[in-house]
């Protein structure tokens, strides 16, 4: 008797369970929270003229860590509310999918801050690198989540690559703009991007439920 079907059945069951797991239902508030924190950080960077490499690095690294732990808290609260385990196999898979990119971003940023200590313009390069890595993380996690998250991953990934190319061109003509403009772009993508996706999820989920 061919028993491959049993393994395939289990795989299908696992995938379907992951799609309806707790983090999926917590996704809209998580995205809105991340967007709000991102927009707030960008506003702080612009208002307080945080244009040194150290200030830029600390601001956005702290923002990323704050958003990450905030997202974990929101997912945990949702799990408690629904009387479900928080650290479930589906949740572990999402974290595993995102971990390499997150780790690369964290270590890369720490190393880069040492290298770019005396030249704030060098910190510009962090922006596209973060966007590409974050796009890859979302894309990886998207295999266990709604399709929209992979599209958001693509948006970050492609926009990051585009900014990388523009920066390279600007670098050749030695016309890289002041670091303050990087806060604007961070606000647009990490603030506005998350807020727009969170609002989209919130509206579509509400529409789906009421039928």
């Amino acid at each position, binding site marked *: *008797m061919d*028993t491959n079907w*049993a393994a395939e*059945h*289990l795989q*299908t069951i696992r995938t*379907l369970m992951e799609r309806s797991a707790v983090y999926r239902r917590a996704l809209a508030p998580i995205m809105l929270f991340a967007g709000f924190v991102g927009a707030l950080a960008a506003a702080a960077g612009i208002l307080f003229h945080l244009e040194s490499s150290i200030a830029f690095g600390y601001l956005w690294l702290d923002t990323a860590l704050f958003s990450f732990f905030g997202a974990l808290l929101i997912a945990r609260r949702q799990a408690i509310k629904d009387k*479900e385990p928080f650290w479930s196999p589906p949740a572990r898979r999402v974290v595993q999918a995102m971990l390499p990119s997150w780790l690369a971003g964290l270590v890369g940023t720490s190393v880069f801050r040492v290298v770019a200590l005396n030249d704030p313009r060098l910190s510009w390069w962090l922006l596209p690198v973060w966007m590409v890595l974050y796009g890859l993380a979302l894309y990886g996690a998207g295999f266990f989540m709604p399709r929209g998250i992979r599209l958001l991953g693509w948006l970050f990934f492609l926009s990051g690559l585009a900014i990388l190319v523009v920066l390279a061109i600007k670098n050749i003509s030695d016309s890289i703009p002041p670091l303050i403009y990087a806060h604007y772009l961070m606000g647009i993508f990490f603030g506005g991007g998350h807020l727009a996706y969170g609002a989209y999820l919130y509206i579509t989920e509400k529409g789906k*439920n009421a039928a």
Partner: protein
Amino acid sequence: MNPEPFLQLDRVIHEKGRLAIMSMLAAAPELSFTELRDALTMTDGNLTTHIRALQQEGYVSVAKSFQNRRPLTTCSLTPAGRKAFAEYINLLEQIIRQTKGK
């Protein structure tokens, strides 16, 4: 190979559509009819038929309410449904172990 685990598989759950519904409901406290329909890309009629079959077996409970003045149908697994689903998974794992042990 021992065919015993295969013969013990619950025929109601083993059907592809019903297994998909049970899998989705096993990971969530409850899901709306439309969430299930969209996630599994089933037609309304097909999903209704499968849910009715699972309901008759006592595996799924269906609740009807209103949200924003619109009817809302939600489905969830009953304790009997959770137990049957867990047993089904155990049997699948047994079958896989047998194959690997051959």
